[in-house]
C-alpha cells in the first residue's frame, strides 16, 4: 500500500514536470536572425570542393561565396526550404547532408527501423514464450 502511493506520487511529479516543460517557448533572437539562420543552413550543406566538410566549416572560396549568397537570399525574404530546393536543383542532392525522404532514400530511412521492429518481435517472443 505504502509502495503504491509512492509510485503514484512519482508519476504525478513526472506528469507535472512534463506539463511545465511543454509551456516553454522558443523565442528567436531577431537581431542577428539572418546571421544565425545562415549558419543553420550552411551546416547542412556540403562544401563541394572540400573533403567531407560543411560549407559552414570551410574557408574555401566556394564556401565563402555560398555563405554570402545564402545570407543575401535570406535577406530577400526567401525561406530555408526555397533556398535548399534551389541549391538542390543547381548542384544535385549531393550538396545536402540531410538526404531527405524521396523515392531514392525510402529504404535508407525505413530499413533500420524495420530491423528494429524485427528485433523487437524476436525478443518479445523470447520473453513472453510459455513452456
Amino acid at each position, binding site marked *: 500500500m505504502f*509502495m503504491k502511493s*509512492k*509510485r503514484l506520487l*512519482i508519476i504525478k*511529479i*513526472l506528469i507535472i*514536470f*512534463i506539463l511545465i*516543460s*511543454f509551456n*516553454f*517557448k*522558443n523565442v528567436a533572437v531577431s537581431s542577428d536572425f539572418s546571421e544565425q539562420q545562415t549558419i543553420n543552413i550552411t551546416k*547542412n550543406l*556540403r562544401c563541394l570542393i572540400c573533403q*567531407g*566538410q*560543411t560549407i*559552414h*566549416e*570551410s*574557408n574555401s572560396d566556394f564556401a565563402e561565396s555560398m555563405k554570402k549568397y545564402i545570407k543575401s537570399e535570406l535577406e530577400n525574404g526567401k525561406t530555408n526550404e526555397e533556398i535548399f530546393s534551389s541549391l538542390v536543383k543547381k548542384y*544535385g*542532392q*549531393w*550538396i*545536402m*547532408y*540531410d*538526404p531527405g525522404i524521396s523515392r*531514392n*532514400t525510402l*529504404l*535508407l*530511412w525505413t*530499413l*533500420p*527501423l524495420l*530491423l*528494429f521492429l524485427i*528485433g*523487437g518481435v524476436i*525478443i518479445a517472443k*523470447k*520473453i513472453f*514464450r510459455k*513452456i
Partner: protein
Amino acid sequence: MIISQLGYYSLIFGLLTSIFIFFNSSIQLKKNNSVISNKTTGLIGFQFFFVFVSFISLIYSFIISDFSNETVFNNSHTTKPLFYKITGTWGNHEGSLLLWLLVLTGVLLGFIFKSRNEPNNYRLLTTLLHQIIVIGFFVFVLKTSNPFNEIFPVQTEGLGLNPILQDPALGIHPPILYLGYVGTSIIFSAALASMVSNYVNKNWAKNIKFWILFSWIFLTGGILLGSIWAYYELGWGGFWFWDPVENVSLMPWLSLTALLHCVVTLEKRELFKKWTIVLCIITFALSMVGTFLVRSGILNSVHTFANDPSRGIYILTFLLVLVLLSFVIFIIYENKNFTQKSEIFTLSKETAVLINNWFILYFLSVVLIGTIYPIFLDVILDEQISVGPPFYNKLILPFLIPFVLFMSIGPSMKWIKTNFRIGVKSFLVIISTLILSFITVYYIGEKNIFVLLLFIGFFYLLLKSLSQFRDKTKNFAQIFSHTGFSLLLISILLNSFSSKEIVKNIQVGESFILKNEKIIFKKITVEKEKNYETIIGFFEILDEKNKIINLQPEIRIYNEPEMATSEASIKTSLFKDRFITINIIKDQNFFNVRYQHKPFMIWIWISTLIIMLGGSFAIFRKSKEVNI
C-alpha cells in the same frame, strides 16, 4: 636498399611459414595430440618474427630516407622530423597493411600464450582458421600492395607526407586503432574453432572475454585519438562528423560492445551461445568491410574505385569467402554441438542484456546502412546523395532515451529473476535527475521537450551509475564504463547546444567581441621551421573578469608537398575550450579569424578515458564471482 630487400624476403618467408603452419596444424588435429607441440608454438613465433622484421625494415627505410623504395619515395621527405618519418611508415596504404599483418600475427601469438590451459584441439583449430586470414592478407600485401617495390632510377628526394597527417595524435592513432580493429580477428577464429570443437561454454566465454575487452579498449582509444586530432587539426572545432571513415571504426565498436555484454551472460548463465558466435563473426566481418571501404578508395568516389579495382575486389572476395566459410561452419555445427537450454525470460539481467543487444544492433544497422547505402545508390542508379549528421541524429537520438533508461536499470537487475521495487534511494535519484535536467535545460536556454527528455535520460544514467558505488557488491568495470558513457553523452549534448562562435575579417590591431569577451588581434610574426614556414597570429582575450588569455593560432606553409594548413590555438579550461583559427584572405591585409567557445570539450575526452578505464578493470579483475 639491402634492408628493403630484407623486408621483402622476410614477408615471403612469413607467407611460407603460414602455409606450413596451416598444414602442420591440420596434421596435428588428425593425430589428436593432447598437447600442442612446441614446434607449432615456435612456428607461430617465427611467423610473427618475420612480419616484425619486415615492419622494422620499412621503418628503417623511412628513417634513412631510402628513396629506392617506392613507398618511402611517395610518402617521405628528408626534411621531415624523425618522428614523422617513423609515423609516415603507416600513414599510407602499403605501410598500414603491413601494420595490419603485424597485429594479425601478433594476436595469434598472444592467443597461443594466453590459452595454455584450454583444450588442445580448440587451440589448434583456432590456429588453423587464423592462418586462412593470415595467408589471405600475406597474398594481398605481396600481390597488390607490396611496401618494398623498387623504383629506378633512384630518386634523391621524396614527395613528402600530407602535412595534416604530421601530428603527434595521428602518429600513434593507427597502431592503437589497429590493435583493436585487427584484434577482432582472433575473436573470429576462436569463435569458429570453439564451435567446431564443441567448446562454447562458460570456460570459453571467460577466456575469449579477454580478447573482446582487449579489442574494445584499444578500439575506443583509437577512436578517441582520431577525434582529438580532428578537433584541433581540421580547424573547425568538430570532433565527430559521421564521416564514412569514422563510421567504419564505430561499427565494430558497437558490435564489440554488444558482444561484451553477451559473453558475460554466456559466462554466468550459459545462455545466448549461438548469438554470441554470430556476434563474433559479425564483428570481424565489419572490420573487413571497413578495411574494404577505406582501402579500396570507393569512399571518395565509386570512380576512383573503378580506376584501380584490384585491391578492392581482392578484399571483397576475401571477405565473402570468410563469411561463407563461417556460414557453412555455423550451419554444420549449429545443432550438433548446441544444447540450448530453453529459458523463461522474466525481469532479469538476461532480459536486460537482450534489450541492450537489440538497441545496439539497431544503432549498428543505422550506421551501416547510412554508410553503404549511398555507395549502392551510386553504383546502381548513378544517383549521388550525402548521408550526414541530420540522418544519424534523427534515427539515433530518439532511441537513445529508452536505451539509456534500460541501461540505467539493467545493472541493478539480478540473474534469473529480479524483484523490482522503488525504494527511497531510487526515489532520490529520480528527483535529483529531474532537478538537474531542468536546471541544465534552463541554463542552456534550449527549451524544448525533446532536449529535456534527452537530458533526463542521460542524467538518470549518470546518477544511477554513481549511486551504485554505494552498493554492497560493486562491479567497478561496469560502474566506470556506464558512468563514463553517461558523462560522454551529457558532454556531447551540452557541447552541441552551447557552442558559440564568431567569424570576422580583421586587420592587426582590431578587436571584436563574443559574449562578454574581447578578442584583440595584437600582431603577426613569420618564422621558419625545418620543413615549413609559419605565420603566427598573437591574440589577447579579455574574459569577463578582465583576465588576459593569450592564443597563438598559426598558418603553416609546408614545403613538401607544398600545402598550407591552419593550426588552431586552444585554451582548455574545466568548462570550456577557447578555440581560435586564422586564415589568409587572398591579396588583402585582412585575416579571417574564427573564434569559438566549445563547452565541456575536455569532458568528452575524460569520459572516454573513464570508459576505457572501466574496460581495464574488467581485464585485471581477479576471476572471482561478480555480476556484470
